[in-house]
């Protein structure tokens, strides 16, 4: 049965956020008999409550609290108060996510040494290697039911995939398949297999896609060591005179402030909220925010170099039928500077329903050039570009100078400029993708600008040395022993791959570390 802990219980681990990082860490610790309270800002919606309608689902699950933006990215112009498309709900963005689960490549843990010095990029090697991560990747894949691993078959390809595959063959790409997806291709873990419903982004009503909401969280609760407290928005982390953190102040469902005492605090609010919380926890002792002696909290914000290419054909495709991310091409993911940029990118199929297509195909666009594209919606195929972007100190999350949210907490201000490497990569990908669809007979292609960020990374980065980043190789902050970061904000660099498998692997690894440190009484 789910536990319920007293606010004054200072023996618990308090985790902020119940998504990929927080939800996984919570369950892993609970399985080891460690008491955990997860504070989650959003409400709890079970999977039968999900709504298979794009805007209604967005209203139900997305993080809609106001944020501000600046920088040269188009999102700042088209969606000035929606820099990111992520979730505020139990399960976090694993309710919305598509399920693509890829391991990083070896060199992507060593970008500074592999890519060399790049003007305007704050590159740094991770303090861990692929070899160290491999056992945890394997555990994460087993936990999440990733297709193409552990003898689980890959999913069948839908129409959108078949178009992609035909184009990949024509262009001579070798590594094209239906991906490594955290979606059940067979019934397992007491959950359904994929019914090709096509609303992966709106929460899988079959429970076929892995989400902490209906895997990690109920499993953790069943141990009697985990309490998930929904509608609890963390505002400040408190500390004592020695600098150890002692509890978390949060606004409860009625907006009343409470403090949950803690032995250990782990921050997993995704890469905009996690630094916002650390910065807002400033005190006389830590005037620049918690764990910020390096000055790196909130900096090096990454969002992957993304973009989409949609194409129209003279015959129907019906790309929206079936899994949203139905296939991948990995050939461009290699590091090959002869293409004019460092790092690489993946092509993954993507489909939006008509309402989102209208909003995102060319935000602000109107007139016949725009509408004739939508007229052929059922003749469209599409893919998403996801590539490594360069960390930059100037790309950062800050506390807004004067705007505050309903709890009096300064709202997040997000600044982002593309690095020239990002732009070169995106243009290369646009060209290749258009060529791919042209090869299958596309009559028109659309290089579509990046959406509000679904992958948000790097703002509390991991570093070997305390002066280069915020956390060490276990996600433990360099400055405060009992304060951890457990989400994608730990990423030193972003790699070409979708981040969640790595977030989950790091959380499993971190749970082992926390348990060991707790029994050794070092924290």
């Amino acid at each position, binding site marked *: 049965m789910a536990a319920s802990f007293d606010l004054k219980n200072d023996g618990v681990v308090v985790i902020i956020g119940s998504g990929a990082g927080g939800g996984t860490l919570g369950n892993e610790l609970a399985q080891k008999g460690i008491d955990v309270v997860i504070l989650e800002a959003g409400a709890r919606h079970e999977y039968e409550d999900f709504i298979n309608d794009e805007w209604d689902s967005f209203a139900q699950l997305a993080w809609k609290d106001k944020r501000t933006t600046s920088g040269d990215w188009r999102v700042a112009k088209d969606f000035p108060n929606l820099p990111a498309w992520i979730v505020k709900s139990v399960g976090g963005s694993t309710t919305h996510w598509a399920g693509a689960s890829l391991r990083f490549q070896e060199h992507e843990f060593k970008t500074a040494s592999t890519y060399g010095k790049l003007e305007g990029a704050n590159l740094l090697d991770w303090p861990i290697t692929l070899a160290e991560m491999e056992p945890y990747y394997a555990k994460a894949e087993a936990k999440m039911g990733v297709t193409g691993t552990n003898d689980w078959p890959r999913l069948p390809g839908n129409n959108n995939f078949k178009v992609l595959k035909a184009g990949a063959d024509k262009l001579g790409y070798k590594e094209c398949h239906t991906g490594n997806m955290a979606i059940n291709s067979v019934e397992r873990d007491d959950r359904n297999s*994929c019914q090709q419903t096509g609303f992966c982004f709106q929460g899988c009503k079959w429970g076929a896609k892995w989400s902490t909401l209906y895997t990690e969280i109920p499993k953790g609760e069943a141990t009697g060591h985990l309490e998930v407290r929904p509608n609890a928005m963390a505002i400040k982390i408190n500390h004592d005179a020695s600098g150890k953190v002692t509890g978390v102040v949060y606004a409860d469902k009625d907006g009343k402030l409470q403090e949950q005492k803690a032995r250990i605090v782990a921050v997993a609010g995704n890469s905009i909220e996690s630094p916002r919380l650390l910065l807002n926890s400033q005190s006389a002792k830590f005037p620049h925010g918690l764990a910020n002696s390096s000055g790196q909290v909130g900096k090096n914000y990454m969002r992957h170099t993304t973009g989409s290419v949609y194409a129209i054909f003279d015959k129907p495709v019906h790309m929206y039928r079936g899994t949203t991310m139905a296939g991948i091409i990995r050939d461009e993911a290699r590091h090959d500077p002869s293409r004019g940029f460092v790092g690489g990118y993946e092509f993954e199929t993507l489909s939006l329903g*008509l309402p989102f297509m209208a909003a995102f195909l060319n935000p602000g666009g109107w007139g016949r050039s725009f509408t004739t594209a939508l007229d052929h919606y*059922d003749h469209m195929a599409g893919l998403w570009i996801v590539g490594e972007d360069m960390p930059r100190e100037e790309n950062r999350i800050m506390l807004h100078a004067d705007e505050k949210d309903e709890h009096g907490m300064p709202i997040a201000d997000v600044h982002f400029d593309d690095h020239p490497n990002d732009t070169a990569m995106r243009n290369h990908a646009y060209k290749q993708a258009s060529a791919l669809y042209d090869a299958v007979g596309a009559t028109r292609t659309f290089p579509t600008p990046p959406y509000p960020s679904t992958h948000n990374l790097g703002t509390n980065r991991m570093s070997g040395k305390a002066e280069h980043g915020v956390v060490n190789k276990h996600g433990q902050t360099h400055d405060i022993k009992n304060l951890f970061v457990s989400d994608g904000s730990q990423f030193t660099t972003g790699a070409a791959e979708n981040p969640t498998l790595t977030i989950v692997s790091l959380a499993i690894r971190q749970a082992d570390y926390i348990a060991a440190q707790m029994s050794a009484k070092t924290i």
Partner: protein
Amino acid sequence: MVTIYDGKPGLSRRELLKRGSIGALLVISGSAVISPEQAWGLETSALKPETMATLIQMARDIYPHDQVPDKYYAIAVKGHHETAAKDPAHKELIEKGIAELDKKAGKGGYRGLGWEEQRVALLTEIEKAPFFQAVRGGLVVSLYNQKEVWPIFGYEGESYSKGGYIARGFSDIEWL
């Protein structure tokens, strides 16, 4: 284009709806914008009926889909009339915006311009203005989020209630 008939005051809405023979797609009568052919009407108490009629035309010029009937454009701009009823600033934004558009168009007003290109040229001039942005921005959701228009574009929407697309053509492409 949206054909609009300025009805004589006094003709009741019911009567107008009965007179399918009237031929016009839209009839402005008293406080209503009515489509006699398709038997639907839109009461406009906050915004002037002429303003609503022009908004409908403007909506079609912004997002022209020749296969989408006027009805859906009318429904898509209805929100402005509801907001205007509550918010005088919004009412002014829309009324003033339409008045300026009519002025730019010269004699006969915006709806009097016969070619889409002529109307679009005017819209392009005001593309950056808050009035245009308010109309266009609202439309992206209010037009394309109508479930009734989805089939016109070949979008089938939710499939959970039918068991997904697994047995309904998720991989039925044949021309590759």
